[in-house]
């Protein structure tokens, strides 16, 4: 046993030495950048190349898993003081749980911050101080659909929930999967619930504030409970693929692109993934906001993820410079050149190129007519960590919507207490 242990030790020592050697800047500065492995990197790589040319700062990308496991990696690395110089992470409620003032550099007074839209800033702020820049374009949460199949079957974009169900009936009768479920990647199960928030706030404008202050619950608010009911209705009516619990995000995108599945409740960032998976099909994909039971339909908007500078990193100044370049006109141009944006940018003066994807064009009327609302996680700091699993249970008929709402209210209570919010 002894020799092998020495081999392992020697190997570790070599790895440490090499790792240490790699982080010594040879020419200019090299920053490390932690990002999840589900986001498309083309745009960021475009900015990286441009920044290296202009600032002499290069980046090494560290990939981490997405979803809850990614949260785990980020939280553990922050807690152990072993964070990359730059990190890419959700804005909104998930970001709030990272204790930003302790971990990230305050960017409030940086000159470029005046160009970042306030609607984004509020999602990466704690006590009025701003800690991040928008890493991407804003996204819509709603329904991606296959326009070719819609044209074949003579369907129109639905503006009420009943019309959507009628469309699904027609698609089902035509022998196709009306709604694609990809619950193997459980985060995708939340979309119908979360994208319904435009309809919730249209009926109950103070819901977010009441919910944060513990004056309202999902189970006790019919219009909020309705979001869980919609999720189950889609399943109970038999619109979904039989293997929805074994299907992954990527398989779902392929089904949507080739038209064997016609609707996919999703965030519009997925368009970038479709473009990579099926470049010739991405123009067949359209998008609409999740319709409500009555009233004008609107769009639930997701703020982009943020990029944050680690406070205890070795290269804080270089990292701040890089971040500033990222939101500059040059930086955004380099980003858009490599990756077509999946929605409007949260930076003033950044206009969308003319050849933007059709599904992104479908989003613009909602913005132009003001029929948008930020998703609940951007207007309330609480989001229960068990929502993906709870949505899988509702969306595959294991639990009733009411039981799920009660369970989720419990989950949220834990989160609110953990954050130390008043009223809980």
């Amino acid at each position, binding site marked *: 046993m002894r020799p092998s242990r020495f081999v392992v030790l020697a190997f570790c020592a070599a790895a440490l030495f090499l790792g240490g050697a790699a982080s010594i800047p040879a020419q200019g500065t090299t920053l490390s950048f932690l990002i999840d492995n589900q986001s498309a990197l083309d745009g960021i790589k475009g900015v990286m190349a441009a920044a290296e040319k202009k600032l002499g700062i290069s980046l090494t990308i560290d990939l981490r898993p997405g979803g*809850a496991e990614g949260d785990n990696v980020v939280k553990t690395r922050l807690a152990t003081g072993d964070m990359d110089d730059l990190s890419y992470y959700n804005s909104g409620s998930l970001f709030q749980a990272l204790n930003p003032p302790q971990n990230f550099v305050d960017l409030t007074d940086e000159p470029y911050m005046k160009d970042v839209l306030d609607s984004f800033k509020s999602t990466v702020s704690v006590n009025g101080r701003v800690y991040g820049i928008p890493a991407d374009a804003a996204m819509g949460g709603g329904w991606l659909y296959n326009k070719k199949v819609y044209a074949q079957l003579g369907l129109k974009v639905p503006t009420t929930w009943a019309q959507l169900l009628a469309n699904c009936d027609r698609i089902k009768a035509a022998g196709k999967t009306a709604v694609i479920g990809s619950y193997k990647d459980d985060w995708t199960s939340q979309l119908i619930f979360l994208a319904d928030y435009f309809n919730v706030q249209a009926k109950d404008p103070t819901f977010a504030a009441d919910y944060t202050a513990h004056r309202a619950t999902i189970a006790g608010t019919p219009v909020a409970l309705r979001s869980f009911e919609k999720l189950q209705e889609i399943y109970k009516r038999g619109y979904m693929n039989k293997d929805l619990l074994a299907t992954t995000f990527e398989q779902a995108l392929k089904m949507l692109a080739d038209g064997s599945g016609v609707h996919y409740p999703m965030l519009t960032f997925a368009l970038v993934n479709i473009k990579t998976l099926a470049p010739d099909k991405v123009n067949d994909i359209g998008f609409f906001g999740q319709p409500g039971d009555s009233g004008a339909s609107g769009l639930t908007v997701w703020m982009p993820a943020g990029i944050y500078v680690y406070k205890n990193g070795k290269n804080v100044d270089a990292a701040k410079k890089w971040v500033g370049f990222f939101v500059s006109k040059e930086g955004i141009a380099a980003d858009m050149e490599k990756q077509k944006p999946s929605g409007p940018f949260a930076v003033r003066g950044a206009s969308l190129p003319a050849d933007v994807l059709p599904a992104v064009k479908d989003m613009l009327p909602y913005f132009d007519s003001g029929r948008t609302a930020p998703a609940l996680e951007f207007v309330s700091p609480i989001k229960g960590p068990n929502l993906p699993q709870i949505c899988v249970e509702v969306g595959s008929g294991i639990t009733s919507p009411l039981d799920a709402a009660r369970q989720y209210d419990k989950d949220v209570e834990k989160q609110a207490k953990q954050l130390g919010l008043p009223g809980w």
Partner: protein
Amino acid sequence: MSTTTRSAYPWLFLAPAALVYGGLFLLPTLISLFFSMTRWTLTAWYFTGLDNFASFFTEPSLSIGFTNTVLYAAITCGLKVVLGLLLGVLLSSSMRARGFLRSMVFFPNLISTIAVGITFSSLMHPSRGVINQALAALGIPGPDWLGNVHLALVSVALVDVWKGVGVATVIYIAGIVSIPPQYYEALQMDGGNAAQKFRWVTLPLVRPAMNAVVILAFIGGLRTFDLVWAMTRGGPGFTTDLIASIIYKQYTGGFYGLATAGNVILFAVVSFLAVPLYRWLTRHEVDL
């Protein structure tokens, strides 16, 4: 002359081991007992008494772990004990290709659990998986192995058995080989057949090996995490969540106090189930 002279000398020999044991085991255990009674953010804590334990037992998404864990441990342990014994008897008899078959049985144990989990979750895919395609070729509609809420836990347990039965078999083979041949010869003189040899010699005398298998498989089952995580992540919903995967999820969610409480509970469950089981089993052993 007193033999119990008080001297610091022996303690010096004890000190290094005691330091390691105290610093790496005792101290963290005591600290975790404390933090299990707090709401903890890793930098600040707030004392909440037994709230964390209460929510572990009352919230359905947490308490489902107890039934699942015990069920999982019982299924995997039971199958490993029975199948391992049968394979052990078979592979300790003189037969063709014995060495090859022994390696075949042990082989799954050499593969990383995560790799096994990922492989089987694609083999068990309801429509594209090899298992269901083979069943379909025979005209049998295969179930959704990992999607059906009543079946998912059993499916994972079966994969665990496939992977772990090799170790059980090896322990059994060692036990069977060490049985003195005189017993078999004596039975043969009395005209006993193969079944009687198994019933009256092998079974009672392989008892110590069987006890080792029971204890190892049961504790292993109670603490399982990696296989479940690789195959279902506790899903669909919470139906295959075990105590260990629930602890992991609470930790991921940032509920460090709650996660610590879960670890204390797991420690208690393993101790309170495994120790009496071990006592009970060893009382029934016979000497060779």
